[in-house]
């Protein structure tokens, strides 16, 4: 089923030299800023999102330290507000989605057998915007100007009269800025998956991870505009005196909530969906078989993506909808559990029918299932309205969504990090160290968050900077804090494991696990051109099947080597039939320039230096104009009639 031998390159030495010449980048400062290689960009996404995770994690540890004992004076209420807001906002927007998009960037072209993303320069641009938008938001914290009204920033609290200062302007502008990156990346994923799949990869052979990323990208396309509009209105209300959310002047505060949750509910799935894709991608290698029920998992991915748009109203119990209208939404809320359940059962069946290989990635997958199911269980408890009203805004809720988010996103990501580390860095990690880290993370997570259910039920509200000594609160809070330190040590060990692998790890073979998808059919780490010969796909598990592997070996035809330039293949949308050879763009500084111009725009908007902002817009337009300017071609090639 698996081979560990290097893929026999079907390309001649001469072809390889040519490919290296067209795709390779000599290390230099310029190439560092101008690269458009999806693997470098993907790595940067992972590292940058990791950095923001670190910052948000340190914020959380600070909060937990403050909450270890009643009436502690480590943090002022103002500082605490900024910390929990930045923690939540960064975890959701600057860590979870970008981290998963980092995996997507690195893996999607490899998994579909292409040489890059559909729009490599747009890809680089998206990364720079993400980095700058993240810094834009975090820099406000040391100045005491960070967002401070919770990650969902409800009006009227966030209107200028109630929260003066820059706090919420940083929030709204920062998220608008970041939204550009997320949208660009999503469009890129969709188009890449539609047009750049290797010949033969018809829709029924697309890896589940790619399905998940594409579904996520579609959700972003249709959900993010609601958030962007919301933030734009908030900014206009605060800065230019509009009245969208002002009930005194025909506005309405509930408008914010509706728009926020039209985005926010799908966003839960935007975060979890690609993580579940990682689960489906990792499982085959450690159960020695394909995931059970491929069509059903595709079904689950597609239907969850769609139904998640129809359930936002459940976040607003208190808003007085007619009960009949409410029932249309709750029908959707209850049915969406079916596809989620299908996925879990498909994975359990895969494990039951397969031969388990208990390596670190599989440990995280098991940790994921346990934690995620517990989180889903407490989620189902909210469906009882009476219970929901009892625990709303208590620590019970905090416990619930950390089970879902850490279980449903962080554990799969950690599985993914260990699983693809050999592919990304070309080095193996230390198994023993990895196990220690896993058990610390797993135990730390449950010791931190399980007690929150309890003191939540005992009535402790969320978002308080301190509390009076109450029966049942003090001891369990201390337990939570100890747990969070355990968790932090575990995560530190993960980091040490990664650094150790890069420095000291054994060199990784192309396919250390016997994985099934195409990234395991090329070197570790892959060459800049990914595949010396673009594969021809004959099944859902191309690395496991002989004809697909042979298509890259000796006897490969010239039309899949394409060494005469920086080229890759377009194939047809549904059936993956070969269409034509295309030239891919070279490295360029334009993406960085464009992102910097946008940074100037958003910064000057923040500080109300509008003339500079207008100048920045001109630079943006000019850069795009130059970027897309058509190259001059001879009339014959263009086909001009006179």
């Amino acid at each position: 089923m698996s081979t560990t031998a290097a893929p026999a390159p079907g390309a001649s030495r001469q072809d390889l030299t040519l490919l290296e010449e067209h795709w390779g980048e000599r290390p230099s400062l310029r190439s560092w800023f101008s690269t458009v290689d999806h693997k470098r960009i993907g790595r940067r996404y992972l590292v940058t999102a990791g950095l923001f995770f670190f910052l948000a994690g340190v914020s959380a540890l600070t909060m937990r330290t403050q909450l270890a004992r009643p009436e502690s004076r480590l943090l002022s209420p103002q500082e605490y507000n900024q910390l929990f807001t930045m923690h939540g906002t960064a975890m959701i927007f600057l860590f979870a989605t970008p981290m998963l998009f980092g995996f997507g960037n690195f893996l999607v072209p490899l998994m579909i057998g292409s040489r890059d993303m559909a729009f490599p320069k747009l890809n680089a641009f998206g990364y720079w915007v993400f980095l700058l938008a993240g810094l834009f938001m975090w820099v406000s914290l040391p100045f005491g100007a960070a967002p401070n009204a919770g990650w969902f920033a409800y009006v009227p609290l966030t209107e200028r009269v109630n929260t003066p200062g820059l706090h919420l302007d940083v929030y709204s502008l920062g998220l608008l800025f970041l939204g550009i990156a997320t949208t660009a990346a999503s469009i890129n994923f969709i188009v890449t998956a539609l047009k750049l799949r290797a010949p033969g990869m018809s829709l029924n052979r697309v890896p589940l991870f790619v399905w998940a990323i594409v579904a996520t990208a579609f959700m972003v396309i249709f959900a993010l505009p609601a958030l962007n509009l919301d933030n734009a209105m908030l900014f206009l209300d605060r800065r230019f005196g509009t009245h969208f959310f002002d009930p005194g002047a025909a506005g309405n505060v509930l408008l914010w909530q509706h728009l926020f949750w039209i985005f926010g509910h799908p966003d839960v799935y935007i975060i979890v969906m690609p993580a579940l894709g990682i689960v489906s991608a990792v499982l085959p290698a450690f159960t020695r078989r394909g995931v059970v029920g491929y069509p059903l998992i595709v079904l689950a991915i597609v239907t969850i993506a769609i139904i998640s748009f129809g359930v936002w109203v459940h976040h607003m119990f208190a808003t007085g909808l007619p009960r009949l209208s409410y029932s249309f939404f709750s029908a959707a809320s209850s049915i969406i559990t079916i596809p989620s359940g299908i996925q879990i059962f498909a994975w359990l069946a895969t494990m039951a029918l397969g031969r388990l290989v208990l390596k670190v990635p599989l440990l995280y997958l098991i940790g994921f299932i346990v934690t995620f199911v517990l989180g889903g269980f407490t989620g189902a408890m909210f469906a009882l309205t009476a219970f929901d009203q009892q625990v709303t805004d208590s620590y019970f809720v905090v416990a619930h969504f950390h089970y879902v988010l850490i279980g449903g996103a962080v554990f799969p990501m950690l599985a993914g990090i260990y699983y693809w580390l050999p592919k990304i860095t070309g080095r193996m990690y230390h198994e023993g160290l990895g196990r220690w880290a896993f058990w610390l993370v797993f135990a730390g997570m449950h010791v931190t968050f399980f007690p929150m259910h309890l003191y939540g039920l005992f009535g402790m509200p969320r978002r308080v900077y301190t509390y009076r000594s109450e029966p049942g609160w003090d001891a369990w809070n201390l337990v939570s804090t100890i747990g969070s330190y355990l968790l932090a040590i575990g995560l530190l060990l993960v980091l040490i494991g990664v650094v150790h692998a890069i420095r000291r790890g054994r060199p990784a073979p192309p396919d250390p696990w016997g994985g099934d998808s195409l990234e395991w059919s090329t070197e570790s780490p892959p060459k800049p051109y990914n595949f010396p010969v673009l594969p021809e796909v004959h099944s859902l598990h191309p690395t496991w099947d002989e004809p697909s592997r042979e298509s890259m070996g000796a006897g490969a035809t010239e039309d899949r080597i394409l060494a005469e330039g920086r080229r890759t293949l377009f194939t047809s949308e549904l059936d993956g039939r070969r269409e034509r050879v295309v030239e891919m763009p070279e490295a360029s500084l334009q993406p960085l320039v464009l992102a910097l111009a946008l940074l100037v725009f958003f910064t000057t908007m923040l500080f109300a230096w509008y003339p500079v902002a207008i100048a920045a817009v001109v630079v943006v337009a000019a850069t795009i104009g130059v970027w897309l300017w058509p190259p001059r071609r001879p009339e014959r090639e263009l086909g001009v009639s006179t």
Partner: protein
Amino acid sequence: MSAHPGPRARLAGGLLLWYAVLGGAVAWAVHLFAAWGVDELTCASGRERIGALPLQAVVAIAVVLPALATVGALLAAALVWRRTAHPPEGLDEHPVRRSRLLAVVAIWSNLLFLAIIVLGGAALLVLPPCLR
């Protein structure tokens, strides 16, 4: 049967496949917006009739028509599923296998969407339209 379908037949067939795959989803979206919007707006204006029709009847239409459209999509999906079970000799197998996957996904997703529409619509039988 050896003749190939013409371009118009191909277009119709291709569209029929997409109706099978997405019909239920679109019908559900229309149902949700129509039923919720009509109910919410009419109740907010303090009435329980729209023109000559009682509100309940209008909401019922916004349930039944999308449900029927979903059933149609379900039938179309079943047709594609049957047509791809034993493809005639000499046909390229790529599109057939791909369509078969889509047909399986379509059948189950239409059933899910039908369930949502029917469940939500069933509330119409027990709840007065403007009760809060």
